[in-house]
C-alpha cells in the first residue's frame, strides 16, 4: 500500500506539473524535500541520543516494572479471558508500560512476546482471539506521555515553545485510546468467539464471553 501511495504521489505530481506548466518548481521541490529530510534527521540526533539515554536509566532502574504493577488492575479488566497467572500477562504489562514511557523499541518485542503467549491460548491457528484484538487496539492507539520526535522537529524549525504540544497530545491520546477500548469491547460482545466454523467442527470449546443474542459472526 505504501508503495502505491509513494508512486502515486510522484506520478500525479508530474502529471499535474505538465498540466500546470510548473515542472521546474516540482523538480526543485523534489531536491529541497530530500534536503529537509536529512536536515530534520540530523536535528533529531541530539534529542534521540539524550532521550534514549534517559530512557535506558528508566529501564535499568526498574521503573518499567514499577509502572507495570501500577497498571496491572486495569490490564486484568481489559483481558478478562486470560488466566491471571499466565505468562502473557507479564508481557502485556511490560508492553503497556514501555508504550507509556515512549520506549517504542522496547514495547514492540514485548508486544510480540505477549502475542506469542496469547497464541498458545488460541484454539485456532490463524484467527485473532478477542484478547489479541484488545492488545492490538491498545498498541495502535498507543498512549504517549512525551512526543519527543515532534518536539525535536518543532525545535529544529525554531519554535518558541517546542514542548507546548505535550498537553494537547496527551488529551488526544487519552481520547483515542478510550475510543479504541470502547470499540474493542463493543465488537468483542457483538462477534461470536470461537468463530462459528470452528465451534461447529470441534464442539469442545465452551463459553467464551458471548453476550449479545444477535451476535453475528464477523469474519475477517
Amino acid at each position, binding site marked *: 500500500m505504501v508503495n502505491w501511495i509513494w508512486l502515486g504521489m510522484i506520478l500525479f505530481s508530474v502529471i*499535474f506539473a505538465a498540466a500546470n506548466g510548473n515542472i521546474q518548481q516540482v523538480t526543485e521541490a523534489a531536491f529541497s*524535500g530530500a534536503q529537509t529530510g536529512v536536515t530534520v534527521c540530523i536535528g533529531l540526533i541530539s534529542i534521540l541520543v539524550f532521550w534514549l539515554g*534517559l530512557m535506558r536509566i528508566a529501564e535499568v532502574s526498574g521503573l518499567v516494572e514499577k509502572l507495570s504493577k501500577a497498571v496491572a488492575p486495569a490490564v486484568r479488566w481489559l483481558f478478562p479471558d486470560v488466566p491471571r497467572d499466565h505468562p502473557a500477562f507479564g508481557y502485556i504489562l511490560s508492553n503497556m508500560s514501555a508504550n507509556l514511557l515512549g520506549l517504542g523499541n522496547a514495547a514492540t518485542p514485548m508486544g510480540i512476546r505477549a502475542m506469542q503467549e496469547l*497464541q498458545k491460548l488460541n484454539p485456532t491457528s490463524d484467527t485473532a482471539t478477542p484478547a489479541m484484538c484488545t492488545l492490538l487496539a491498545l498498541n495502535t492507539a498507543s498512549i504517549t506521555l512525551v*512526543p519527543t520526535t515532534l518536539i525535536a522537529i518543532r525545535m529544529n*524549525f525554531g519554535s518558541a515553545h517546542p514542548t507546548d504540544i505535550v498537553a*494537547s497530545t496527551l488529551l488526544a491520546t487519552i481520547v*483515542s485510546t478510550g475510543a479504541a477500548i470502547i470499540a474493542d469491547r463493543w465488537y468483542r460482545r457483538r462477534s461470536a468467539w470461537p468463530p462459528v466454523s470452528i465451534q461447529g467442527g470441534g464442539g469442545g470449546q465452551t463459553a467464551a464471553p458471548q453476550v449479545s443474542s444477535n451476535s453475528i459472526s464477523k469474519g475477517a
Partner: protein
Amino acid sequence: MVSFLHALSAWAVPMMIVLIPLYAAFRKVPVYETFIDGAKDGFQTAVGIIPHLVGMLTAISMFRASGAMDALIGTVRPLFERIGIPGDVLPLGLLRPITGAGSLAYATDLIKEHGPDSMVARIASTIQGSTDTTLYVLTVYFGAVGIRRSRYALKVGLFSDAVGFFAAVAACWLLF
C-alpha cells in the same frame, strides 16, 4: 484546567529529566554510565530514519509544488474549515494510519511551511504524536504469530485513529 495543562506541557519534560535519574540513583544504578550506554542507540535511530524521511518528503514536496495537493483537498477544504479543521491537515489524517514515515514527513512539511508555532503545525504535531501507525502495528504484531484473520481489529484501530484526529483538533483549539 487549561492553565494546568499548559503547566503540564512546560513541566513534563524537565520533571522526567530530574526524577528518572534521581529514582535510579536511589536504586543504586550508575546513572551516568547507564545514560551513555543507552544514548549510543540514539545516533543509529536518528540516522536510520533518514532514508524513510528523504523518500517521503521528496514525494510530498513534489505533490504539493505541482498543485496536486490543492486539487486533492480543494473541494472539501471549505467544508472542514467551517468546523475549524484546517484543510492542510486532512491528508495527514489519511496518511497517519497507513505509513508512519509518510505521515511524519507530511507533518514535518506542514511545520516547515506554516511555521512551528502556527495552529496547523500544532494540530499536525498532535495528530502525529498521539497515535501509532495502525497498519504497521497490525502487520508486525499479527504477522509475528501467523494470524491471518484479524477479525474486527483493523476496524477498531481505524476508528480510534479517526476519533484521535478530531480529538487532536479539539485539544489544540482548547489549548491554543
